[in-house]
């Protein structure tokens, strides 16, 4: 059932003269795997799915399924079913006939199609809901039916466009478990689009980070957390510590002082990023401390607190650190910080193109 999907150099310019919504996007989705495209609103991630499904034509580049180029193949003959953020259940059909839709359009007799629909409703734990009108369901149930309807089409690739974003936290976690379970049973190839790193983490084997229509980095999410390739990736994954400085001979020099780097980094200007989870907070006099500073803000995050530590210097430099569960530190307390060598990553400084631009993300969505 599942097939390998291969996107190469996908580019889409919506209107001639405008900036491309997607620019030279390349991604391999091995058969049976789940790959997430992670990006903020307006990053072009929905465009990836629309081009893959054949709902839009790429300006350049190709979509290949098991090696076959799909250029010119209409959406209905690509063998890809899509679940959107809106459930889009056909309101004039019952739940069962919604799930049976794919079978019906491919000519399966009504009785057989409905029997199969019941099986898929059972898979998403909605057995017995078949007779209900599609609009008599809750949000979570609607999205389950949408998932069952897509799976009943037996797609070679399942495309998920932020399908769980509109659900509340508990329902979303439930849907994640359901999808993980369905992956075990049906082994589909899944291409998922999301803006939520936690969702990508819960569902995907690998992640491709998209920003401004360009692929920033691809790989297992753990790798992206540990070694972000750019400021955009670091920010998208929740990194907040960004210390500009200069690299020379494997040492980053900044307001934090000279800090040795774990691997070879080319000389020149670079921004040091460190995950808050990796930073260890100690006493200000601790000889192991790499830098000392003052707690200026405490942010609660469940059991753990996140502290912002201001390091004195000509330009105010802040480092964020996560405290151990239950640990407390008041604002104003001087502390020492240990930045483990392995957690130090240097990324190129932000160019004018990749600087955060609040206006852009406010305009377009998806």
């Amino acid at each position, binding site marked *: 059932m599942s097939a390998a999907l291969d996107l190469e150099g996908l580019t889409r310019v919506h209107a001639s003269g405008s900036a491309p919504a997607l620019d030279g996007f390349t991604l391999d989705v091995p058969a049976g795997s789940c790959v997430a495209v992670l990006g903020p609103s307006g990053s072009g991630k929905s465009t990836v799915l629309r081009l893959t499904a054949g709902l839009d034509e790429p300006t350049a580049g190709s979509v290949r399924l098991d090696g076959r180029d799909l250029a010119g193949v*209409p959406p209905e003959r690509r063998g890809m079913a*899509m679940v959107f953020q809106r459930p*889009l259940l056909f*309101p004039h059909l019952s739940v069962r006939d919604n799930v049976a839709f794919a079978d019906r359009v*491919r000519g399966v007799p009504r009785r057989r199609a409905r029997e199969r629909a019941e099986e898929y409703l059972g898979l998403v734990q909605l057995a017995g809901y078949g007779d209900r009108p599609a609009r008599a369901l809750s949000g979570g149930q609607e999205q389950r039916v949408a998932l069952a309807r*897509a799976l009943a089409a037996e*797609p070679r690739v399942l495309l998920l466009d932020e399908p769980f974003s509109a659900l509340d936290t508990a329902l979303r976690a439930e849907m994640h478990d359901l999808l993980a379970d369905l992956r075990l049973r049906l082994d589909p190839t899944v291409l998922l689009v999301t803006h939520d790193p936690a969702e990508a983490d819960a569902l995907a084997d690998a992640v491709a980070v998209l920003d401004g229509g360009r692929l920033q980095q691809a790989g297992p999410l753990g790798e992206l957390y540990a070694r972000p390739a750019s400021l955009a990736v670091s920010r998208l994954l929740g990194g907040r510590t960004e210390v500009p400085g200069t690299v020379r001979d494997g040492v980053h020099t900044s307001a934090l002082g000279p800090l040795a780097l774990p691997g070879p980094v080319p000389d020149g200007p670079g921004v040091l990023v460190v995950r808050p989870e990796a930073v260890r907070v100690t006493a200000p006099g601790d000889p192991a401390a790499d830098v000392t500073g003052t707690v200026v803000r405490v942010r609660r995050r469940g059991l753990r607190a996140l502290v912002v530590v201001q390091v004195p210097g000509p330009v105010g430099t802040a480092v964020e650190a996560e405290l151990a569960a239950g640990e407390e530190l008041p604002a104003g307390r001087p502390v020492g910080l240990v930045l483990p060598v392995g957690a130090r990553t240097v990324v190129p400084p932000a160019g004018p193109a990749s600087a955060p631009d609040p206006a852009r993300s406010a305009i377009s969505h998806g």
Partner: protein
Amino acid sequence: MALGTRLGRAALAVWLLLPLVPLVLWAAADRWTAPAVLPQAWGTAGLRDAVDSGAGTASLRSTVLGLVVAALATPLGAMAGRALAGSGVPAGGAVLAALLSPLVLPPFAVALGLDVLLLRLRVPASVGVVLLLTVAALPYTTVLMRTAYAAHDPGFEEEARTLGATARRAVLAVQLPMLAPALAGAAFLAFLVGWSDYVVTLLVGGGQLVTLPLLVASAASSVGNEAQVAVLSLGSVLPPLALLVAVGLLGRRR
């Protein structure tokens, strides 16, 4: 329901139904002279006169005219509305204004002017009537379908496509059923244009196409047969009313 809402609805119903009361009374009156509050003699003379004057064939003609106008103006309006709801029509505002112009131009002037043209082109009278009335119905169907298409999420068809439906199948199996209430409303309005028209049928039809409104008008222009006029009038009011209820029920079911 709040008391105010209920009172408002009652007032509205009275406002709409009150004019029908004298009509119903007249239709069943064999004799009703001036000072009397109610008819002095009840009977079916009005009904008999109406049937004798050809009410049966006239309402059949009106029905066929209304159906033909609806059958032409609804798909045309749906196509125009769909195109105008998107952004693909160059100078869409001007196109919409042209389609709405039959609402602004006095029908008498249009019918008289086009009558000459249609005669010169040797267009048969009944075809001419249908053509003109279809144009007259287009503003209603276009505006209604434009609103319906603007509110319709094209994502439904895209979902159907990824599930294996061809573009044509997606329209037939998903789009049209979802737009059925709007289509029914548009067809109802177009039917009414054909069913109730007087000016175009009279001028362009040249008196050959005797529909119900023509019969009502000719009966009303003479004196002494109020009961017959009342029966004919009721005959032209009640079928659309029944249709309206049917369309309303279809809309509510969804």
